[in-house]
């Protein structure tokens, strides 16, 4: 069975500090991977996607970066947090890129509060 794990579960960070959020998918090889962000009370926005190791495409610019160092790992990071980075971060995977019947499976999410 496939599992998707996100870490940390929640984080409180200071403005200007670095951030690293992680996502691991087990039980699936070569998944498509996605990062999403949702401000409190806001609309869910897709940030990045990755089709293969080492390749990441940006969808929305939020002064964040993403990397895919391994087939099953997706990392979201920044060197300097902004207050506007607060919110809920979700990682997801899928198998059929761009297909009409593609289903995305989401992790439990990470809540981030920047003070």
């Amino acid at each position: 069975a496939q599992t998707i794990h996100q870490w940390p579960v929640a984080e409180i960070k200071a403005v200007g500090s670095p951030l690293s959020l992680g996502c691991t998918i087990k039980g699936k090889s070569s998944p498509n991977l996605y990062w999403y962000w949702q401000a409190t009370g806001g609309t869910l926005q897709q940030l990045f996607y990755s089709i293969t190791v080492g390749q990441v495409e940006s969808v929305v610019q939020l002064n964040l970066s993403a990397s895919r160092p391994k087939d099953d790992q997706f990392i979201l990071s920044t060197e300097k947090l902004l207050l506007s980075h607060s919110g809920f971060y979700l990682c997801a995977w899928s198998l059929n890129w761009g297909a009409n019947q593609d289903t995305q499976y989401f992790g439990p999410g990470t809540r981030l509060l920047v003070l």
Partner: protein
Amino acid sequence: GQQVQQSPASLVLQEGENAELQCNFSSTATQLQWFYQSPGGSLVSLLSNPSGTKHTGRLTSTTVTKERRSSLHISSSQTTDSGTYLCAIDRGGRALIFGTGTTVSVSP
């Protein structure tokens, strides 16, 4: 403006009642998906329905691509259906654009 609009913004139901959620989008889409977001935030994909009618359990989605609209019908609502329902369309096949959601509250 908002590319994906959902209505109503919120809905209060008595257990057993049916509900109809609407999604209107301003650009052509090859993907249209409905998601459920729990009060805790986790997201589950419910249906992928770019055109026509699809059923899963007590959910029925009807998408009329030419009219750029989709609906999600919940039949015989249960308290566990409470949460936020999100509609999303593709963005050139590379990303999803989400609507603001319909928050459903089902009371026993």
